[in-house]
């Protein structure tokens, strides 16, 4: 089994918009969804369509994985990379990447995105958070007031 796995040289990932990414096996290790698929094959090359992930997002995820899989990079360099990585993203990007991380079953990247999103909604108003997640409230104003009253111990 180990020999079969190591025979795979290049993995081709095909994003939802058809864009193609060729990566080495160690890059996709964290993508459990992809990995479980590779594990069942014994071919030299594999191509895997990812219909739920757009090319731009996949490019970013691969960039992140490459940086973190590298043994040459120091911990500090990785931390600085993470900092810059989040800084250049808009809220929409973060949510889309979180979704992709969930779909690809990438545990540490999912944590990383969840943390970045949490930092944005921390100490924000209910309206801001609704807007951020595009949530339509299905409460009437009376119901909402009632809920706040019920949980007033959290709204003090």
């Amino acid at each position: 089994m180990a020999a079969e796995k190591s025979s795979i040289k290049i993995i081709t990932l095909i994003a939802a918009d058809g864009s193609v990414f060729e990566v080495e096996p160690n890059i996709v290790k964290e993508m459990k969804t992809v990995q479980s698929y590779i594990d069942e094959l014994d071919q030299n090359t594999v191509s895997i369509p990812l219909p739920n992930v757009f090319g731009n997002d996949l490019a970013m995820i691969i960039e992140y994985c490459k940086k973190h899989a590298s043994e040459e990079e120091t911990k500090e360099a990785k931390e600085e990379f993470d900092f810059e990585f989040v800084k250049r993203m808009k809220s929409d990007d973060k949510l889309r990447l979180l979704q992709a991380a969930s779909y690809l079953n990438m545990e540490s990247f999912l944590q990383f995105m969840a943390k970045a999103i949490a930092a944005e909604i921390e100490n924000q108003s209910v309206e801001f958070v609704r807007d951020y997640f595009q949530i339509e409230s299905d409460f009437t104003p009376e119901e909402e007031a009632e809920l706040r009253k019920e949980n007033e111990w959290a709204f003090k």
Partner: protein
Amino acid sequence: MSNSSDATALIQPTTKTVKVSECQNIDILSDLPDCVILHILSFLNAKEAVRTCVLSSRWKDLWKCLPDLKLHSSHFRTIKIFTKFVSRVLSLRDSSIALHALDLNRKGCIEPRLLKRIVNYAVSHNIQRLGLYFNCDIAQIPPTIFSCQTLTYLNLSVFPIGKRPFFPKSLNLPALTTFHLQNFAFCADHDGRAEPFSDLSRLDSLVLCDCSVRDGIFLCISSPTLVNFTVRSRFYDFYEIELCTPSLVSFAFIGKPCQIISRSSLSSVKYVDIDAEMLDMDTKHPLILLSSLLGLVNTKSLTVTASTLQVLSLYPDLFEIKLPSLGNLKSLKVKMKPLSYELRKILVYTKLQKIKSRKEAAELEKAYKAGLEPSSIIPEGIVEFLLQNSPSAEVDIVDWSWSNAHSIT
């Protein structure tokens, strides 16, 4: 989250291209499973997390399934409101769901009853990561903490009322891998030695902050599994640390060098990070710092702050010493963290003592007042001194001003 069988079903290897139209309608949030939203909420403090209950009916009870709770009194206007909040959260949370992590940070002395309730809740919900920060007497810490079978991470930063709390003599924490202790006093046996961690069979990382040894001068740490060890020392607790840790790879020290590390204790260590400081003139600090360096026989990477090098430079006739260690060094990193006011004063004072002429002394004082002294943040010749047995090691001078250090974290 999708399990692997679902995941493979989603992937169709035969279809090479996917029509864009099929994926344009990915609705970001409604597609996010609850467990992913709970991941986000886990990073919020519990107050913010609970407040999401008013967002919509889907969110109404979501917080009750939170696997992580961050309970910090600083997020509340008064301690009374905080206490009520904690109590309500514990009552209303879905108790069928395991509590993965709890982080309790309370200003001042915690009410023993509340602490007991929190700890018992955590332990009975299979807590894995527990962080407790508050003032209390150790007698009030429920002993169940020290026999919790599920704990993998424990951080006890207990600020004592009066004397430092005693550390329990025996521990039954079979799953514990990371242990972070602050302000504890380890009790020594009749032979003056304390050996508090030998029961922890899976210990991987140990952090001791401002801990001391009571009725003794030896702290023994024997652990075949320990990989990372950090000591922080802000006070003047002089004792000797004896390590019997064959797997130890990295060692870090922060603060005033007060703890002598026994000879050959650090022989397996590959990575060392030292940020030494001195706030008043005590010749023991440079001596202890130097003695630690003598034990680094297999160290590949040494990271030090500028202040560490300054403290070391205060050892008399340092450059005449032939180091028996640091022969395998590949990398030396010097973090250019600004020197503290106290250390600068010590350095100038030491220099003044060596100066004979008054004029020179006056000039030195003037330069010090203008912030120009010490003229070089790294003492001259010290890098060469450290590299005497590894002249080809790579030297890296890292800018470590406060702003830089903070922007990354």
